[in-house]
């Protein structure tokens, strides 16, 4: 079995209007090389589901987003994403499902468990209910009879994740201490594609101290794209931290996206790594202390 693919093969599985889940969290472990490939493509009208960072910003500036299902969009160290803000303030994102970040987890978990919804109290008393008319209530069938919010399943067509290490069969390792909700994204999707810093032989997974970092099963993974530096400018702990200098340049580019597009997006992956200072630079970016 060999699931090694390139970005063209990943893009061939994505069509206009699909619902795409993106792993990571804010400015952490985002599959940015795949995101840039989507920005370059003809794809349009995507529904994006994510704990948002510069992935959302880039896709907004590249006019790929029809609907956003999200709790926040933040670059962490820079609280707000200028590209996302510009798109929102121009009314460009036609449909929004803005929910609590825990409700987002619940929606992904419901999809992962093949359930129509999961109940929660989270959202009561806020505009999350008022703005999302599709979210309905459910009454507990037990003696308490409590009325709860039925957070609907967020079913995904494709999930895109970035991991530290993978093999050609789709086994993956996330070495960072927080795997975020990547496992749920993989389970909630019909197809999952991962980019990986490093490809190793399956035999190297055999040590228990390595295998504990395997966060979901290989049968969920449909393609593995070898992409060193693939999360840049977001972090890929412990390989490299958030490239704050690049995120500043990115932030300033919301009003001059054509220039950023030429310089960093409309080029090959190798050219991108050269443009940001090479892998030696990327690997030298230290971990941000919050």
């Amino acid at each position, binding site marked *: 079995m060999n699931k090694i693919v390139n970005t063209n093969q990943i893009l061939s599985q994505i069509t206009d209007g699909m619902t795409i889940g993106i792993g990571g969290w804010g400015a952490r472990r985002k599959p940015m090389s795949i995101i840039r490939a989507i920005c370059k493509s003809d794809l349009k009208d995507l529904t994006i589901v994510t704990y948002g960072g510069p992935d959302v910003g880039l896709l907004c500036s590249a006019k790929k987003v029809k609907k956003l299902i999200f709790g926040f*969009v933040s670059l962490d160290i820079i609280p707000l994403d200028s590209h996302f803000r510009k798109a929102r303030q121009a009314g460009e994102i036609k449909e929004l499902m803005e929910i609590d970040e825990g409700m987002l987890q619940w929606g992904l978990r419901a999809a992962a468990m093949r359930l129509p919804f999961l109940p929660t109290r989270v959202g*009561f008393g*806020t505009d999350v209910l008022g703005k999302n008319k599709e979210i309905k209530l459910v009454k507990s069938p037990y003696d308490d009879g409590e009325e709860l919010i039925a957070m609907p399943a967020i079913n995904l067509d494709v999930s895109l994740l970035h991991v530290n290490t993978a093999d050609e069969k789709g086994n993956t390792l996330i070495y960072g201490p*927080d795997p975020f909700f990547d496992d749920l994204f993989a389970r909630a999707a019909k197809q999952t594609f991962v980019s990986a810093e490093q490809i190793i032989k399956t035999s190297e997974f055999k040590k228990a101290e390595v295998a504990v970092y395997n966060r979901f099963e290989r049968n969920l993974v449909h393609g593995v794209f070898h992409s060193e530096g693939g999360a840049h400018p977001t972090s890929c702990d412990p390989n490299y931290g958030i490239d704050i200098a690049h995120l500043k340049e990115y932030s300033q580019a919301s009003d001059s996206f054509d220039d950023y597009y030429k310089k960093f997006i409309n080029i090959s992956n190798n050219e991108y790594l050269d443009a940001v200072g090479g892998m030696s630079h990327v690997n030298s970016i230290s971990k941000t*202390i919050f």
Partner: protein
Amino acid sequence: MSTSSTTLAELCISIAAKAWQKDGEILATGIGLIPRLAVGLSKLHFNKDLLMTDGEAFLIDQPISLGQKNPISSAEGLMTYSRVFDLLWSGHRHAMVSPTQIDKYAQMNISCIGEYQNPKVQLLGVRGFPGNSICHKNSVFIPNHSKKVFVENEVDMVSSLGFNNNIYKPNVGIVVTNLCVFDFNGNKNSLRLLSIHPGVSLDEIEENTGFEFEIFSESISEIPTKTELKLIRNILDPSGIRENIFGAKK
């Protein structure tokens, strides 16, 4: 230590730190610089039983000094985002947050300002506010007390539950601003003045608050003790980053 040599940032950190004083063994989360330093001071001085995180993925036994390079050296456990949700849904947390808007019902907004489909100012999104406000206690830090923050009408996008809900009530702790200290324990959970910072007048507070509040006390806010100042200056923030929060105003 006299009042004049204590900065506004230090005053706010000291007052805010007392928010967790009687909380026992719960997770204290301070979002933003001053709340984060306040959690650290609380852990060192007011409530040693608190759980706190490095802001990334670990529970830590000792606060991380601002600028410290190796936070993992003080880890005592793991606190991934998934575990944060698990923990907060059962109520074992008290956060201090800085909303962009807050109203007379204690509803808060960090999502956007203006009309929803085409907002004047897009902010973060509701983030964890709906879940936090219905599950656990939240205190508030406002660095720029004004009518833009304490809004006359309801907040533009209600991100957290307020006291105007018929079924659920939020648990709101203290509200520390650059001018004064409030809580929401007035009549019918209205905003209530607890103390005024040195050099600030009641008029100034009224002029900068978009709705009426009760006056429980006009006493002067308690300034930090020598021990607290030492912990802030020598341990928690030795390079003085806290002073950037209020710009040039000290």
